[in-house]
């Protein structure tokens, strides 16, 4: 017996509680859920089946439901979880509290927002938010489009959420993390698991997101592994956080379809990016299009799909200074013209050299300078300008 009582757990959990979250509620919920075969989602369903929250704030309703079903051994088990959250710099919030994303808590418990949310870094901001989701097994087309959409959205002050997986998710996070909109990840496991490995490691995507002021969210206890059901369940959180969901690429059974379904249940718009019909990874977006969701063929489609009150909010966000530094190019004018005409597609080096009529060495040297300056990147299919050469007026 470790001698941890519910009262002591309450004291211990205080420093992990997000703004406005009662430590006592948090302690009771944690102690309740550590016992096998009790899930917080089950608790929500029980509330729905019973009488809802009975007009009380969700936290009070939840506390009333669990208070009499926990003992000191539960408190001791819950207490052992806390250091793992603390090590990851997490804050815990309960649904309906001020520190809990308001959009996710809308109409709770009728909607399926998680009872408990752990967040490392900043939580998702209240402003306009878009979810960009798709397959892990993504093509360069898919990742390119995801990055394009995310970059434009973030630059317009729209927050980008996704699932933190490799492929489409990662492309969206990467492109958004440095823009004013920022980005958040909804993990498919506990905070202390480190999955996917390539993103969770030192200097990985997650660290970059935290450094850039974004957040990592999870409904799971810190050590819960990324089992299929758990990973799929987090898709509803991604949908719940967003005003619009864009499905970029995914197979016929992709988790992105779950995200789209969850968004539809909440009555939020879903968009799909038309895919190459020869590629299996296009099944999900193309099926959604066939079922009647909106097509996203341009970042403007995405911004237009945001609810009008939110667009107004986005408009107040200062624009990225892309337009200001525009006319300066390190490339020979003929080469720049070709890249601008092809944008956002890439142009192979051979074609640039051939059409410019300049010696190969001259073009290559100029491309190096432009790459060093960040004007151009080289991709597998050729060279491409980093920014839209002619940003739409207004």
């Amino acid at each position, binding site marked *: 017996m470790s001698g941890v009582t519910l009262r002591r757990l309450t004291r211990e959990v205080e420093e992990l509680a997000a703004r406005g979250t009662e430590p006592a509620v948090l302690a009771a919920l944690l102690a309740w859920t550590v016992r096998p075969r009790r899930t917080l989602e089950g608790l929500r369903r029980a509330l729905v089946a019973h009488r809802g929250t009975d007009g009380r704030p969700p936290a009070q309703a939840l506390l009333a439901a669990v208070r009499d079903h926990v003992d000191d051994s539960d408190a001791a088990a819950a207490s052992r979880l806390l250091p793992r959250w603390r090590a990851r710099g997490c804050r815990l919030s309960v649904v309906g509290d001020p520190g809990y994303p308001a959009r996710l808590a809308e109409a709770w418990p009728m909607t399926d927002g998680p009872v408990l949310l752990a967040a490392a870094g900043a939580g998702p901001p209240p402003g306009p938010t878009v979810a960009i989701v798709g397959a892990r097994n993504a093509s360069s087309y898919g*990742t390119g489009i995801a990055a394009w959409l995310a970059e434009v959205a973030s630059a317009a002050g729209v927050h980008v959420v996704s699932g933190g997986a490799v492929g489409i998710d990662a492309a969206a996070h990467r492109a958004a993390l440095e823009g004013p909109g920022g980005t958040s990840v909804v993990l498919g496991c506990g905070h202390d698991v480190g999955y996917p490995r390539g993103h969770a490691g030192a200097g990985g995507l997650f660290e970059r997101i935290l450094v850039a002021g974004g957040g990592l969210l999870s409904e799971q206890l810190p050590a819960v592994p990324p089992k299929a059901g758990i990973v799929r369940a987090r898709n509803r959180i991604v949908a719940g956080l967003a005003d619009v969901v864009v499905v970029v690429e995914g197979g016929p059974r992709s988790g992105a379809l779950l995200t789209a379904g969850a968004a539809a249940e909440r009555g939020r718009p879903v968009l799909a990016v038309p895919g190459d019909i020869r590629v299996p990874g296009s099944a999900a977006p193309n099926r959604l299009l066939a079922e009647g969701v909106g097509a996203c063929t341009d970042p403007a489609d995405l911004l237009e799909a945001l609810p009008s009150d939110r667009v107004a909010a986005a408009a107040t966000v200062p624009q990225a200074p892309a337009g200001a530094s525009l006319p300066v190019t390190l490339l020979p004018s003929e080469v720049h013209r070709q890249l601008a005409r092809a944008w956002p597609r890439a142009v192979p080096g*051979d074609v640039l050299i051939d059409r410019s009529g300049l010696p190969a060495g001259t073009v290559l*040297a100029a491309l190096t300078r432009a790459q060093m300056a960040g004007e151009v990147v080289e*991709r*597998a299919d*050729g060279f491409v300008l980093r920014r839209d050469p002619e940003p739409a007026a207004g």
Partner: protein
Amino acid sequence: MGRGLAVVRGIALVGLRPLEVRVEATCSPGLPVLKLVGLPDAAVREAGERVRTAIQRHGLRWPGERVVVNLAPADLPKVGSSFDLPLAIAVLAATGQVPMAAASRTWACGELGLDGSVRAVTGQLPLVAGARQLGARELLVPAGAAAEAALVTGLTPVPVTDLTEVVAALEGRRRVAPLEPVRPCPGPAAPDLADVRGQPLARRAVELAAAGGHHLLLTGPPGCGKTMLAERLHGLLPDLTTDEAIEVAAIHSLAGERRPDDPLRIRPPLRAPHQVVSAAALVGGGAGVPRPGELSLAHRGVLVLDELLEIPRAVLDALRQPLERGEVVLSRARARISYPGAVLLVGATNPCPCGHLGDPRRACTCRPDRIERYRARLSGPLLDRLDLQVPLQPVARAALVDGSPGEATAVVAARVAAARTAAAERWEPGRLNRDADAALLRRTTTRPALARLAAALTGLGASARAFDRMLRVARTIADLEGREVVGPGHVDEAVAYRLPPVPVSA
């Protein structure tokens, strides 16, 4: 009966390094057996039977006594059949059938047939060159290898067809007419660079590779002309000098890839081993004394490795040291052997496992992590040494973009030759920019160019080795322009061949 100790000199090769072997023979009372000592291998041990039969069948006398033959130095393993001839002469001298004094001045190598005929052996050319190095003035050689032996200057080969001629030569009854060395042969005409339509990037890289000897990595989907470009690169290399051609021929002779009557090839070698090549076949190896591998066979020429990423990583990593040093060092328990291996490496690979990444017409179906894993097979240190990394577009696409009419090989080869001459004058004869001394190199580079390169390296996260290697490429670019100093523009282009495309998921 002559009861002296007869000594004849033969040559042993450890790798390409020649060592003098004294073949000593003496007769003593006892049963008529031949006792062979001095670490002979199976082929040398069998020499006893060949020599005895050849002597008897040729009407010469085999002694009715115990014959002891020692191959000195006794601790050096002797291999092959080239000791047949010195052994026979030593026995003949020990039995007084040829003059002892003449025998003790004689160098000989060659294999005997049972009928007493003298035949050429594997590695005949390096044996002759080795005898010259060891100070021999005259060498008894198989008549079949005489013309080849005549290539080696400073040594008079005495061709012999059988034991009768050997005896005659040793008795001074045989006059040697000056031999006509084998003619250098230009070999078949190489395919012309003018056939390459479009692909200006690849053409440029091939020209730089030929001029500076820089290693080349071609990345592109199957059938985009990687092999075609490698052949044209070979066509741009200048002919070998006679000395270089002999050096190359000696390696081929040692590997058993060259017969003594083959013409001397003055075109640099072009080797393209299949991708299931083993490490031993690539860099050399084998039991006992290691044999030269494909790398050494391509010495002073081009080594093409197609499907580079299909070659096991351990095999590829064996290339790292040789590429840097221009020679292969094979250390064995019994010997440490080095073979030359200054090659121009041309690697070719698909951009991803399915081959269609970056192809505008076909979608790539590879997962990003699989592409990364595929690329990771090329270890960083080896990738560091591939100075010119060029993406290729599929041919149909390149043909659609009706490219500039290709310059002919002769035109480009002239520029290549001029750049090579400039480099050789700056460093030392025969030295390429690839092998230029780093300190001297920096002295011919402007400060802004060095600063530009240092800045680029920070962006690339490249090693210090990469710094000098890129500078060498920049030096070649300047040489092709006929410039004495390397400027920032040259450096910028050199860096372009190193910038990796960003990962697809980024």
